[in-house]
């Protein structure tokens, strides 16, 4: 029973982390129709920017996280505006562009920071123990930030002009443009929000886990899984699916082991897609 409760707690904390990543990923897909292969790159970049701020500039950690969000958001904005925007309707071209960016970013980080993991610790450590059950304090902070980020994103999307504009462009690009909504203004902003979220996750999670130039690879796979499960382009779906993926991963890893645990997760996603091809809360699809 203790193990069961522990698995549930781990699942929720994994879910919070996955939700932050998946929200950005699905935002870019839902609004721009771009499958962002560089998502993991922005995650790593967020980690390294925060690390550099703490280690070289001596900034306090929360400020470093903020800088990381701004920096990754700014890079995302520039990348969308100057490169991606030119080919934004060609899904294959954008896939290749984001892939190219990922390779360049990870090589850049490897060159600048070297291959080894950094010494980058979360300022809050320790765990709350209740008998055999424990909850790491840092996970609680990530959970709180995650919920806050989801709330903030929701407010932006559903309570501001920017959000209305983005959703309109996602629903019907041509008509939205005819209503005066300018993709060239809004798409870079959407991309920046999403990459900023990835950067936020990186800045928050890499000190808890580890920071090296290859921690971005699994991010893409996890985001993929979460977003398919949740239904493409659906924010609520992505958030829900992130917690489902986290909990399934936690339980299957605890009860079946790491390798089979991953298999269980993949097969589950495959089955869900077969029986419910649009994911938990998906909408009809765009072309690939």
């Amino acid at each position, binding site marked *: 029973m203790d193990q069961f409760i522990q698995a549930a707690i781990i699942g929720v904390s994994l879910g919070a982390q996955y939700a932050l990543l998946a929200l950005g990923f699905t935002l870019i897909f839902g609004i721009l129709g771009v*499958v962002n292969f560089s998502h993991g790159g922005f995650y790593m970049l967020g980690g390294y920017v925060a690390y550099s701020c703490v280690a070289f500039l001596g900034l306090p950690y929360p400020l470093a996280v903020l800088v990381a969000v701004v920096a990754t958001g700014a890079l995302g904005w520039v990348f969308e505006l100057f490169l991606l925007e030119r080919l934004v309707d060609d899904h294959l071209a954008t896939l290749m562009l984001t892939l190219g960016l990922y390779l360049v970013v990870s090589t850049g980080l490897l060159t600048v920071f070297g291959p080894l993991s950094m010494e980058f610790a979360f300022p809050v450590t320790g765990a709350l123990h209740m008998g055999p059950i424990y909850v790491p304090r840092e996970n609680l902070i990530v959970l709180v930030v995650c919920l806050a980020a989801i709330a903030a994103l929701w407010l932006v999307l559903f309570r501001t002009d920017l959000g209305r504009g983005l959703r309109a462009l996602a629903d019907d690009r041509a008509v939205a443009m005819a209503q005066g909504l300018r993709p060239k203004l809004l798409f870079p902003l959407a991309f920046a929000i999403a990459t900023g979220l990835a950067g936020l996750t990186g800045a928050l999670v890499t000190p808890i886990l580890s920071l090296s130039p290859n921690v971005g690879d699994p991010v893409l796979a996890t985001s993929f899984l979460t977003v398919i499960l949740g239904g493409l382009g659906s924010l609520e779906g992505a958030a829900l699916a992130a917690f489902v993926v986290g909990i399934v991963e936690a339980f299957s890893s605890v009860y079946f082991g790491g390798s089979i645990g991953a298999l269980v997760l993949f097969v589950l996603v495959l089955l869900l897609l077969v029986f419910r091809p649009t994911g938990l809360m998906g909408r009809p699809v765009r072309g690939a």
Partner: protein
Amino acid sequence: MRIKLLGWTEIVALLLLSCGFIVPMFTRSVLVYSVLNQAFVGVIAAESVWIMLRMNLLSFATPAFMAIGGYTVAIAGQYDITDAFLMTAAAFLVPALVAVPLGALVLRLRGTYFVLVTFVLSQIMQLLIFETPGLTGGSNGISGVAPVTLFGAEMGTNRLVLEYACGLAMGATLITGVLTRYFRQHFAAIEENEILAESLGLVVWRYKALGFVVAAGVAGLAGYSLVNMLLTAHPSSFDSATAVDFIAYTIIGGRLSILGPVLGTGALVYATNLFGTHGQYAQGLYGVLILVVVLAARGGIVGTIAALWRRVS
């Protein structure tokens, strides 16, 4: 209307590939052999991706079917079955057969859902290999695969291996070419607008299933060629991340014609080898190359050549 089995693009592609038989007459450079060999494997895999792209489906499942083809041959080799014709047939048919039930599951999905589910498929394949050490050698793979035999003679030398890979690539190109030519209009209709095609009476699922199954078989040939080149079937050869390479070959080459996967593979395999000796910068250079080509050459290499041709003439 008469349906042509092969067009000039397919013939040019086959002629380009046939250099695998010609080059060994002029050089014995191991690098030339190695680059060509990798390119022949890549071309087959990229053609598998290309078949699916004809129907507007982007598939990440290529490494999974390559693994099935490659391991089929490697396992058969352990039982001393090495005949070239038999193995080629098996490397095509086994993945194709596996693709039948899989296709029934995944072809219901369209667009990005299809992209993502095929990505999941190749991840599952990796884990299945790890979890079945008895059959596949698990994480160690199967090494020391016996070389193929053609009419009982072993194809052990570098040159024979290269020529065999070339033959396989031409065979795969022929299969791909005939399939996409014969069903050109059907595929084009599905690519253009699947729902419209269906409403006009085209039995869409039949052609999609056919394309998927043949693409799986072609990928199996790529896996076979790879195993034959390395004499090893190893899970790292079929990593799901390699799917991205094959897609890059196809898109960089251009999706307009079968020349796309052929030229794109040639260019990128050459670049990979060129960059490989730059150590840690290799990946980054490859990334820059992709960015530049995608931004500067709309429609890939083939699209750019076509545009230049139109301007000249």
